[in-house]
């Protein structure tokens, strides 16, 4: 058994599934003892209570998490079916999501300030596309120019002139 940690991203290598099992069990217990009682109101039910299905599923998930832990300990932490997740993956994921979120914030704020359809889009989308292309890192310069200008133009033409759908 190797180190314990809370996030699924912490582990690399063979113990990934062990940690996944622990995370699943903890998550299910969190659901069972905190979130389900707080977020589901059984008052007014006349058949099966609304919390029955979530509870049953949470118990099922807890059980499966336990099976995963047990199976992993049995294999001595060397489960051939385990997936691989590295720090690098997590970092890349964070980068991508961050880029999209920043683009959305720019779109939202600019769109709000100017208050015309597509004003936010015209500022946010090219910046976002440049960021996405940067993340890929191997694009030639023309690709940046193409992505930043031609793509938003086509989307604008398609969505606004073609379909009359507003964007911020």
């Amino acid at each position, binding site marked *: 058994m190797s180190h314990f940690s809370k996030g699924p991203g912490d582990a690399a290598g063979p113990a990934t599934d062990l940690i996944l099992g622990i995370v699943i069990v903890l998550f299910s217990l969190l659901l069972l003892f905190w979130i389900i009682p707080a977020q589901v109101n059984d008052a007014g039910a*006349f058949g099966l209570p609304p919390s029955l299905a979530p509870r049953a599923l949470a118990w099922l998930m807890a059980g499966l998490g336990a099976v995963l832990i047990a199976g992993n300990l049995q294999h001595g932490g060397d489960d051939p079916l385990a997936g691989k997740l590295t720090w690098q993956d997590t970092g890349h994921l964070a980068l991508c999501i961050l880029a999209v979120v920043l683009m959305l914030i720019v779109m939202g704020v600019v769109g709000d300030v100017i*208050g*015309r*359809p597509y004003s936010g889009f015209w500022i946010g989308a090219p910046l976002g596309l440049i960021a996405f292309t940067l993340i890929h890192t191997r694009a030639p310069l023309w690709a940046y120019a193409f992505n930043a200008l031609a793509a938003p133009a086509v989307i604008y033409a398609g969505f606004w002139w073609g379909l*009359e*759908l*507003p964007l911020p």
Partner: protein
Amino acid sequence: MKHSQTLAFAAAIMASAAPAWADFPEKPVNLVVGFRAGGGSDTAARILATEMEAALGQKIIVENRGGAGGAVATEYVRAQDPDGYTIGFAVATTFSFTPLTGSVAYTPEDVTFIATTHGYRTVMAAPADAPFDDWAGMLDTARERGWINYASIIPLDRAIMQYVGKKEDIAVNIVPTRGGAGARQAVLGGHVDLAFSGSNALPMMEDGALKIVAALNPEGIEEHPDIPTLDGLGYGVSAAEAAVFFGPDDMDADALAMLESALAKAVQSDRFKDFVNNKFRGFETFKTGSETAEGITLDAEAYRDLLDFISE
């Protein structure tokens, strides 16, 4: 230049309804529809939007924010600038009933009502092979067997049936369904004895696929006067549903007047009338903003009494 054209155009049309100096609207108006794109409510909103464009001389951008029976759109619209450039489309019960359930943060006082444009008709439908033909027969069946299976769609129709059950001392076994399709399926297949339905049950009844034992809207069904209303049956309850245009609280008065008169004109168009009467099978009605607000306050009081009665 475009601005002055707009002004002249709008003023010419609205001369009687709006002050001549009103320069609303000088840019496109956003209409936030509280229902999914493509449905009957959305279609009505889009037809009205096209007619309003002619009256206002400005583009209307229709955007769908469906969900929670109009509550999602209401939450969105009430957070916008009350300058009249963002308005919403929902139904009367979004304001008169939904806030009573305690699940939303707004009240009818948090928005400005612009107009009511048309009414919805709702009915209680029974399978074609049901052992009864009318409301009294349904009650007898329920008493004989000991209970009645009822397919419900929304909290309001459920509350009304619970009310009826309590008044008549019959057990109403409420079967929840998701959307009108589920309830329709249950009643056509004979899996329940009674189901709530929108006006799309009318053609089904005319084809003989199901029976309609009562209407829930206080106006009743004009072309079938033999269908009683719950009100007429002596329960004193009804589901008054209508399409409502609204804006954020404290909306600009000039904008409000312009929009209200544009809608008054839009509902007179042949296209819209044809849609409401023949396709949607609702009914024509027009109420100004203040009349709408009054109506909703009255409805809300009635629903509160109803809920109090069934929870006693």
